[in-house]
């Protein structure tokens, strides 16, 4: 199930939003009748600020939104796009749902795994790449589809994957 990730890792240092992020949070809050409703968007701000959401960041969000820290942790572990530990500079997301599967998506995953020497969920030692498998990302007509951070790359084959991995900074 979606929420099969149970813990939020500590960063070992306090999380404090920079002023620009706090301004964004204020703006977000003005769009909702409750503070709790701002939770998902504020968690997005946290992830954009630090690249992942540490236990300290989650507690800071809880404080700002006046929510129990356990509620924030519950929400964080439910949604797959929040990174609960640091990820590489490029988050490689391979879709392996049915249309991409029919187009051989697993072959891409296998190839990437061999090339980078990491497993699904793993990060290269230089911190450049993290690779994960995702469910349908609505790129089915250009299967197999994948995303790198927030951008789609489709359709992919072994050559275009090699080219992509070679050009990402």
């Amino acid at each position: 199930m979606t929420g099969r990730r149970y813990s939020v890792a500590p960063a070992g240092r306090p999380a404090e939003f920079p002023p620009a992020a706090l301004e964004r949070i204020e703006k977000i809050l003005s769009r909702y009748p409750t503070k709790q409703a701002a939770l998902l968007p504020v968690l997005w701000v946290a992830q954009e600020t630090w690249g992942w959401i540490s236990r300290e960041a989650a507690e800071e969000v809880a404080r700002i939104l006046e929510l129990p820290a356990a509620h924030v942790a519950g929400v964080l572990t439910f949604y797959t796009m929040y990174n609960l530990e640091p990820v590489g500079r490029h988050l490689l997301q391979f879709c392996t749902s049915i249309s991409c599967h029919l187009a051989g998506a697993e072959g891409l995953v296998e190839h990437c795994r061999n090339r980078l020497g990491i497993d699904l969920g793993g990060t290269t030692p230089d911190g450049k790449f993290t690779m994960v498998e995702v469910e349908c990302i609505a790129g089915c007509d250009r299967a197999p589809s994948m995303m790198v951070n927030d951008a789609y790359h489709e359709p992919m084959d072994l050559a275009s994957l090699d080219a992509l991995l070679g050009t990402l900074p």
Partner: protein
Amino acid sequence: MTFEPVLTARVGRDRSQSIDTYVADGGYEALRKVLGGDWTPEAVTEEVKKSGLRGRGGAGFPTGVKWGFVPKDTKGKPVYLLCNADESEPGTFKDRLLMEKDPHQMIEGQIISAYALKSRTSYVYIRGEFFHGARVLDRAIAEAYEKGFLGENILGSGFSHDITVHRGAGAYICGEETGLIESLEGKRGQPRIKPPFPAVFGVFGAPTIVNNVETLCCVTHIMKRGAEWFAKIGRNEKNTGPKLYCLSGHVNRPGVYEAPMGLPMKDLLFGDAFGSGMKDGRKVKAVIPGGASAAMLTAEEIEDCPLDFDGLAAKKSMLGSAAIIVMNEDTCIVDAARNLAKFFSHESCGQCTPCREGTPWLHRVLDRIESGEGRAEDVDLLEKISNQMANGMTICVFADAAIAPVLSSIGKFRDEYRYHVENRRCLVGSRPSVEATA
């Protein structure tokens, strides 16, 4: 009679996302008309009822009737309109196109719908992966505010409305309307027990209507060109309007295609204007007609199969989100079923035991059959598990969706399952390979 695209008419246009080109193409005329004084909110709802518009998100419920469920006296509570842009059903990619290419078409429909519902505030709940779509929408909404189509006293009508884009964060279940509502409230997206229905008690405890992106786009055109015009498009009076079909899998030209509701399946797969036939001249083995949640159809069943709500219900499947996934004769049906089971196992929200435990169990059994370790009793076991998961055993219909591909593939391809168990390998083909299709 040739069909002129309606919903995708502006997709290929230069700068199709900008409000200037949208207005130049007649955009926001429908909103001007509706707010011009001759249309009461009730009259707009009536017009949408007359059009026969049925929800494009999957369930196919008549949109105007749904709107009518909002109580006349809301006891001082606001009414919320939520646009369901969580498009996550495997095989579906039409809303992504609509939002990325023609955002104002949807925004205009959303404002008109909000007027019909007397709603001051609406949200677009867009799946987290649509970073680009969310940025396009944010920009378009800002433009609409600048031009006075959103905000206070729109076009001097006295009607005011605000739209906010709300991004999800990766959870298929948030496409279920009460899961979406929970998520919008800042919680885990676990569906609610119904009743009460959202129209009475929805987001923030207030009356709430959830409509799909394509549904709202249709509203724009219904109010622009009239319910009668809309109702004349389509196979019959119960299946009306233009429709977007998402075609993927082993066809020559996958893509989003617009056609009148009720397009024959064979036309979509083989027509020159659509899929243009099977890749490499292979034969059709099975087709999923409405996304992962829909029962599979065999090659014989698609011979005479209109792609609309009732046409597919007659085949004991469903139009769903109109995601047509085509599998050729080399596809191992057990492998396909296993892949679909993996999806549902991953996406079960976990609150009802039959679904939380049943979906991974189905996946494990299918995985062992596919891997050549199936046991003689496994096919019966799959059916037994399935029958204990659905039909009212859970809060939402996710479990019903999860068992549809399992039961339909067993029912229609039982020999292939049996072969797999007995011979410990696929009857046909092998696992799909990326080189072969690239």
